[in-house]
């Protein structure tokens, strides 16, 4: 039963990435920072469950862990207080920024943007994974598995296809060799974003057509921000800026709201788990 919850897969894979990152990459991660994120996300989620949404706290715990793991992998800061802010904003955004019961922003993404804009000491390192082939395989494999469980692989595919096409057009127009294109796409950070952050079934459009349009729009904005405004953390800003578009797209393309795993869950559990299912990063 446990492994019918896609969040468990998310937790396993994000933990794996965090472990791989710490062990093999030169990340300046401190246990205190990771601990802070976990403590903040879990306690804020607990508080929100008990006092704000009146849902069983344990049901939401996995999503708090996912957000904490996602933020640990992606966000860096000089001070503990910045991470407390990021974690708290991430979790509270789910509760406070909702339209028709659906939260607007991906919590991890919201936490990152909050830390980047509200504090002076946070940063994201887009080059932290490098571009070795085995990471690509690992990300694709793990992402595929998790997306398969959640049923939102189309978003990743649409985003990657649109972004790769735009970069390919740019590459041809500029006259670069194809290894430049490959290098831009093989970035571990980009793949992680595509597979784990824009696939959050609770915040993305419900209809497949809506998701395809939405993902392509994020790809387009990412491409623009990266190549015209030269923003290296473009994907996070693009997702943040276009997340509210989901509300409009859901109106244009009405469809069943995401109800994860009709196959294996009792009807009573559905809403609660769906509500908590929010891959952070």
């Amino acid at each position: 039963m446990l492994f019918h919850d896609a969040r468990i897969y998310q937790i396993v894979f994000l933990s794996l990435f965090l472990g791989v990152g710490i062990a093999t990459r030169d990340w300046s991660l401190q246990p205190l920072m990771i601990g802070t994120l976990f403590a903040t996300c879990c306690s804020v989620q607990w508080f929100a469950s008990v006092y704000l949404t009146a849902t069983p706290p344990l049901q939401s715990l996995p999503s708090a862990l996912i957000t904490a793991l996602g933020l640990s992998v992606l966000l860096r800061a000089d001070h503990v207080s910045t991470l407390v802010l990021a974690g708290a904003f991430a979790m509270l955004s789910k509760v406070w920024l909702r339209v028709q019961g659906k939260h607007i922003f991906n919590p991890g993404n919201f936490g990152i943007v909050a830390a980047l804009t509200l504090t002076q000491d946070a940063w994201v390192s887009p080059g932290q994974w490098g571009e070795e082939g085995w990471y690509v395989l690992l990300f694709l494999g793990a992402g595929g598995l998790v997306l398969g469980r959640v049923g939102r692989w189309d978003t990743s595919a649409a985003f990657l296809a649109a972004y790769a096409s735009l970069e390919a057009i740019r590459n041809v127009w500029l006259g670069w060799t194809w290894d430049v294109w490959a290098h831009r796409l093989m970035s571990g950070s980009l793949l992680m974003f595509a597979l784990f952050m824009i696939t959050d079934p609770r915040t993305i459009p419900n209809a497949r057509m809506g998701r395809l349009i939405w993902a392509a729009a994020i790809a387009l904005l990412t491409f623009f921000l990266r190549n015209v405004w030269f923003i290296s953390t473009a994907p996070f800003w693009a997702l943040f800026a276009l997340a509210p578009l989901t509300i409009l797209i859901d109106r244009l393309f009405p469809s069943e709201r995401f109800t994860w795993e009709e196959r294996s869950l009792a009807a009573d559990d559905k809403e609660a788990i769906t509500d908590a299912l929010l891959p952070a990063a």
Partner: protein
Amino acid sequence: MKIFRTLLLSCFIFLASCFFVTKAWAFCGFYVAKADSKLYNQASQVAIARNGNQTVLTMANDYQGEVKDFAIVVPVPVVLKEDQVEVSDSQVIERLDAFSAPRLVEYFDPDPCAQLWRSEDFLAAPQAASAERAAPRQSNSALGVTVESQFSVGEYDIVILSARESGGLETWLTQNGYRIPQGARQLLQPYIRQRLKFFVAKVNLEEYETSGYQSLRPIKITYESPRFMLPIRLGMVNAQAAQDLIVYILSPQGQAEVTNYRTVKVPSDAEIPLYVKDEFSDFYKAMFDTAYNREGKNVAFVEYAWDMAGCDPCSAEPLSADELHKAGAFWVTPETPQNVFITRMHVRYTRDRFPEDLVFQQTNNRASFQGRYVLRHAFTGEPTCAAGEAYQRSLPRVFEQQAQTLARLTGWSIQDIREKLPQVQSRFMPWWQRVFQALWHQS
């Protein structure tokens, strides 16, 4: 910790003189020599001071060759006017280099039986210079090429060009007597289409001769652009082997990093055998090679990251406000407190592993880092107490650990290293340890 105490810090180096024997100006442009002089680009240094989008970029001129043959083409993000280009002092780069160079630190073990005492001493910090010559001439024409501005600064004649297509630019350069390296034409196109301009510099021989300078000075350009990158692709046109680039990034914020390649710290804080003191440059070179290969040859190494208000230990005196200003840190004034964070990055790049130009970002990471290697002088006096005996007994193990560390960092043969280790003869050493030690030195 009580076993030994820091007595003496010291430091220094630099690798430049020995490490980068053949420096050249390669990173962002290519040479367009008129003569068939042998030009090769092996290493270059550039300092980038950046606050927001305002950028001051200083290119150290390490051109090796006849001054009259010197000419270079560098893509720049905006059209530069005369007041945006200056000739800088080569000492500025040397100072940045000396301040941020990987350092050797010496500690002296005290007599474990005596009272602790302490003193300090500093070794000299040999510095490498850059420099050399260059020269060509120039002319004019169209072909879709616009001469955006044209002026002389110091010993350089400078033309800023924009072009509509690479063929026209190539023709312009050729017509004006510049020899374009094979394969440069295809590489010019992406830069033209990205709307970059071309900074073409050559030496005004008359100025150069009357200036009395022995070498070409660095060129400093000031501009405002959201692009924070170095176009290394062009520099690979006329380079056969891997090239080394040292980038000093000065920021009011914190550490800088590369966003499209991994940024990795060089191995540091390793305790290595004493004899390395005499061959530090060989050590560093081998260690860098090993790290470079281990990391897959496609990373940028951080060799130093520190707030420039201080250092510990210092391999050179911190730069004064005036020197920082000269190095491009335009936000520093004598009245304001010094707020400059330096990141020294060392990138060794080849065409196959670095398809894209380097893109940087500044972060708010103010954590300090330095490439620092520790020499520990053992106390050689006769032990007069139990602690002293224990200390002497521990020495072979300590030396062996240092040897292992050195072998791991450099890939050098452990046997060769052991042969150079100091001998510890002590009446307190157990017989088996003496046998073991003898075996090492025989093998």
